[in-house]
């Protein structure tokens, strides 16, 4: 009885609040944890995620940094090596390029180069994605690109549960974890279990069951893809929707189980098409489930253009419902 109540007790919240709750929880539970980044403190976070945490945890643990992405990311690496559990916030993925040397040449390689003597238990959070008309320098979706790097894990929470639960699990990892929060999700609201906590970060999730085609996606595109599945359902097509959750490592088993059953797949990914994560997933399906395929795999990615400012062009550059539906139908031979 009590158990049932606990399970069903939910609270209305937003993705932003869920991330904040995760931060607060981690800061409260483990005093090695601290948050460091541009405007995380006094400003309250550029997307208001860390609002209120400075008052609660003080300026040492909610550490505003100068505009020095490489410097403070590297400082996060060093602090992690010395026993802290830093959460570095790189305001957005667009600025993370300035820190890429530290991420790739240090965070991702130190365990290996040191012959396993030193680890870098660092969590780096950043906002990602387009859709807010921020134009070419502020609209990158590079999470799939980061997934190329051995030595790091890449997480993309798409749901309230994952926004709330992935951080703590990431902090338990002995190696660097990058968490990409899609900017379009921060305002997403819904019900979250009151006792929501850590979630696994190993498995992809089947967000909708279906037998006709596998739609594989993650992050901000999950919701468009679920919508597409609903539209397809009205036409009698039962699409299965897979939320990858982790882009590195990828959960091949969940993907292959689904595709082997549906025999058709479309991958939806907000990265630029060439060299996208979608290509990697498509290639893995070819490698592991080629003989199960009844049709070419499709992908819906961003157009190969720096994201333009005007809304109609930006929308046209990104994966959208009609494109997903159309790709699914093509894969089903109904185009």
């Amino acid at each position, binding site marked *: 009885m009590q158990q049932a109540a606990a399970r069903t007790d939910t609270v209305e919240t937003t993705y932003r609040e869920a991330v904040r709750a995760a931060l607060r929880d981690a800061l409260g539970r483990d005093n090695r944890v601290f948050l460091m980044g541009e405007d995380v403190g006094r400003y309250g976070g550029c997307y208001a995620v860390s609002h209120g945490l400075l008052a609660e945890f003080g300026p040492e643990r909610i550490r505003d940094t100068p*505009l020095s992405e490489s410097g403070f990311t590297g400082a996060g690496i060093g602090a992690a090596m010395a026993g802290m559990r830093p959460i570095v916030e790189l305001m957005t993925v667009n600025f993370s390029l300035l820190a890429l040397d530290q991420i790739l040449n240090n965070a991702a390689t130190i365990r290996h180069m040191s012959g396993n003597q030193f680890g870098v238990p660092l969590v780096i959070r950043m906002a990602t994605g387009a859709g807010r008309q921020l134009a070419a320098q502020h609209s990158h979706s590079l999470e799939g690109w980061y997934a190329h790097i051995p030595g790091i894990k890449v997480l993309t929470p798409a749901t309230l549960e994952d926004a709330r639960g992935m951080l703590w699990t990431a902090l338990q990892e002995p190696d660097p974890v990058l968490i990409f929060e899609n900017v379009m999700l921060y305002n997403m609201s819904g019900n979250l279990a009151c006792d929501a906590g850590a979630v696994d970060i190993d498995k992809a999730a089947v967000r909708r069951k279906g037998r006709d085609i596998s739609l594989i996606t993650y992050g901000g595109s999950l919701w468009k893809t679920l919508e597409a599945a609903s539209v397809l359902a009205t036409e009698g097509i039962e699409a299965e929707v897979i939320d990858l959750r982790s882009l590195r490592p990828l959960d091949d088993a969940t993907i292959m189980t689904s595709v082997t059953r549906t025999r058709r797949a479309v991958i939806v990914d907000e990265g630029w098409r060439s060299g996208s994560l979608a290509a990697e997933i498509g290639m893995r399906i070819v490698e592991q489930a080629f003989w199960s395929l009844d049709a070419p795999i499709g992908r819906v990615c961003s157009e190969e253009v720096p994201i*333009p400012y005007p809304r109609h062009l930006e929308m046209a550059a990104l994966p959208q419902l009609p494109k997903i539906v159309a790709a699914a139908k093509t894969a089903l031979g109904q185009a």
Partner: protein
Amino acid sequence: MTLTAGKPHLSREHMLDLLRQMIRIRRFENKCAELYTQEKIRGFLHLYDGEEAVAVGVITVLEKRDRVVATYREHGHALVRGVPMKAVMAEMYGKQEGCSRGRGGSMHLFNAATNFYGGNAIVGGGLPVATGLALASRMQGDDIVTACFFGEGAVAEGEFHESLNLAALWQLPVLFVCENNSYAMGTALALSESETDIQHKAACYRVASEAVDGMDVVAVEAAARRAIQAVRDSRKPYFLECRTYRLRPHSMFDPQLYRDKAEVESWRPREPIARFQGWLETNRMIHPDELSRMVSEIDAEIAEAVNFAETASWEPVEQLCRFVHADSTVPTGQ
């Protein structure tokens, strides 16, 4: 009637022009803020309220052949530089008649005709580019000056350091203009620099420098004149710190938790337009009629720009993938 007879730039006419330019920026941006709430303008919008004396004081002194590199807070710079207001407003709307064909928006105003090299939205990202523009000047043996604007927040970035060193080492004709408005978003200068005397940074690279009251357009212009002359003659970099203050939020999303209203109010009396206008009035250099004529001319220009932007056209979606590489149908800048 001039302050210093013989110096044409201190003529009354020139004074009025400085005032007019500042008011033009202010009123243009006030309109933009309004249009933002109407969702005509989208994305990020960073206003220059309180800082107008910097762009006006510096860019006024540049020659047509000179170059300008700016940040995402660059409407004022574009307007002073002579990018037509209509084209700027159309850009804010994202229309293809905009100065960047609508592709760039508020943060990426570009204009080849006036050597306006953009609107860069990566903090510090414009500094290496400006250094390279000046390197071209050096190698081409011209007498062009490149003026590079950036906020004091950019000073913490590695690119600031690399650019100042390169410019000084290679003796490149670039004027670095630091718009020190005390905050980088919500981060006060003292929280971002161990040495808060920004002008002092220049000396670390053996770059000549000056700090000036960035709320005083006449002082800025005078300093800019010295600075630009120095760059033009010496073909070496120069660093100008303009101490100013942003009276509005960082962008349209900023709840300003990091500063008191009182602090903002304490700066308001130094606000460059009221201050300069008051001074001109006190010294009877401007007649109230003149002022209202000026304002109504500006408002008419703004109205026209809004009208232009409203009636301007959306780029056909079929063209989405153009301008990633040069294509043959449109001429390129250089």
